[in-house]
């Protein structure tokens, strides 16, 4: 979609040689336009719910909310949160083990736009430090000479800290013996790493976000004090603190969140007659992540930014009018 959007934008702004948009500028404006539209989805979703409550929306093909949910869910990710103070070889000191880092590019691969839910494994099935690595012929394995692995762990999840504060999770695909499990990750290439094993059936407790002004009261109330069945968390900076504090194991906290869209990047390799030629085989190529029907909105948005950039009021106004027209149609 990114190439057609760019071609449309260039066709509009370059009609009378008003200006030219470099690939670098286009990528900047494209990113900004995508973020604008992404943000709007949440407000439109809320508006649609209000309209449903007022019986202004239908079902079936008239279910507009469903479409918004599909777009938002495209950006949904589930990842294990890293303990803020745990490294691959050292665990968090007492009192800080229940502090976990929110999703970031460094820990989970993507930044979060909003945390939808935080889930807790209510039971730690096994934990330890790996003592060996698999032979090339054996495939991917978790090896711990002191462990007592069982066949019931197959299908479970193993979390292992490979680098500082980064938790890698893998599926346990097979049981070899009490010291060896087959896993579906190739990342376990060194020994001395902390690991934890959980069963998927134990991922049942959802932690509730409680604001900092309420958490003390909540902890002091006999009836509502957070426990492993009904845990809670507060947010401070880029970390969350889980209650009860016994939620303190590596890999025990899993977040389902909505990530930001990836930055779009229109890539090229060769220059032909002074113009860059689109090449989507470049490793850093990234298309828009919004659905195809947002193409017009993206063009309108980018035109507004481009209009400001090239100081051409008509382009800006055209983009603005187009956007308003599309909004009215919606």
């Amino acid at each position, binding site marked *: 979609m990114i190439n057609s959007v760019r071609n449309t934008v260039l066709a509009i702004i370059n009609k009378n040689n008003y200006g030219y948009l470099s690939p670098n500028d286009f990528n900047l404006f494209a990113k900004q336009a995508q973020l604008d539209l992404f943000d709007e989805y949440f407000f439109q979703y809320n508006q649609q719910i209000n309209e*449903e*409550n007022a019986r202004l929306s239908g079902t079936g093909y008239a279910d507009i909310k469903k479409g918004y949910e599909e777009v938002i869910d495209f950006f949904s990710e589930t990842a294990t949160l890293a303990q803020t103070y745990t490294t691959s070889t050292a665990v968090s000191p007492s009192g800080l083990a229940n502090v976990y880092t929110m999703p970031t590019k460094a820990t989970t691969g993507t930044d979060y736009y909003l945390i939808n839910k935080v889930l807790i494994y209510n039971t730690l099935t096994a934990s330890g430090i790996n003592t060996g690595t698999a032979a090339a012929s054996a495939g991917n394995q978790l090896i711990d000479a002191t462990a007592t692995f069982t066949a019931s762990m197959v299908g479970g999840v193993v979390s292992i800290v490979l680098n500082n504060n980064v938790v890698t999770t893998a599926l346990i695909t097979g049981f070899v013996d009490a010291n060896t499990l087959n896993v579906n990750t190739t990342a376990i290439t060194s020994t001395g790493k902390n690991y934890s094993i959980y069963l998927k059936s134990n991922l049942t407790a959802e932690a*509730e976000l409680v604001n900092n002004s309420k958490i003390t009261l909540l902890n002091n*109330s*006999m*009836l*509502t004090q957070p*426990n492993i069945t*009904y845990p*809670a968390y507060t947010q401070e900076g880029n970390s969350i603190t889980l209650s009860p504090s016994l939620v303190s194991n590596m890999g025990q906290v899993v977040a389902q969140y909505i990530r930001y869209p990836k930055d779009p990047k229109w890539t090229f390799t060769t220059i032909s007659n002074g113009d860059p030629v689109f090449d989507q085989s470049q490793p850093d190529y990234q298309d828009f992540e919004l659905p195809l029907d947002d193409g017009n909105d993206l063009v309108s948005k980018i035109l507004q930014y481009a209009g400001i950039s090239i100081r051409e009021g008509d382009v800006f106004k055209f983009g603005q009018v187009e956007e308003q027209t599309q909004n009215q149609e919606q």
Partner: protein
Amino acid sequence: MAYINQEKYYTNDNINPTNENWGSYQYVSLADIVTNFLLMYNGNHSLINNEERYKILFHAKRGVQELNYDAFKEIKSLQLTVYSDLRFVLPSDFVNWVRVSLFKDNTIFPLVENIQVQSALSYVQSATATFTYDGSGNVNTKTSSLDTARQDGALNSIYLNQARMEGVDMPPFNEDYYDTYIGARYGLNTETANMNPTFTIDKKAGVINFDSTMANQECILEYISDGMENGDDSKISVNKLFEDYIYAYIKYALLNNKFGVQEYIINRARKDKSALLRNAKIRLSDIHPGRLLMNLRGENKWIK
């Protein structure tokens, strides 16, 4: 919570306690109640929306507590030996008592509550009636003579007409003095007559005090709790006959405390809650034909 198969029900997959699931189908767990409420009664198109889960959990637990106080009729019992201190420490989950019994010679003897005071705190006093204090400024205490007399078996009981008039030089009129001798002049007072040990519950101190005849005897306390299972949320449950009532109770409690909710909506929720409680109580009243039959059989007994 998912349904379990019969093997799991009867054997708990041989995991101790193996009787964990016996009778469990009568109950719905707190976790299920909260989950179902959040799913079915809370949301964008429901009366309840944007409420924190801890509020729903709080009201669910309060509803369970209220049901445990009367409607459930789930009476717990605890048997302990009463030693020479004549005390029975109340169970950790005690809320109110139903019956206290003496278990002796393989027979259960229901005991009568003593309406008189059985235990008292006493301060150390000097000859001039002043108190003495410890380093923290608290008054020094001692065992009261009432407690000593009770534990020694010297305390007279109105329940056996032990307070007799012989040889007593009775003052013209003294109310307390007079009370002690109720019945003594006119034979046995059947209202209080009882040869079994008597007890008094000191709720603040958390003990049941007995008279000296209870020493080294077995005592059975029947009591009610609040169903909170000592804080283990995973063990809290409600009889299924009350499931709808609990949902209605939570809904009413939330709407009633929310600003701006129309009065007719609150009234509807209140009536809903009350009607469901009545229904559940009738269902749980257990008026079985078999039980009625047993009572009716008693009518045919000839009293000779």
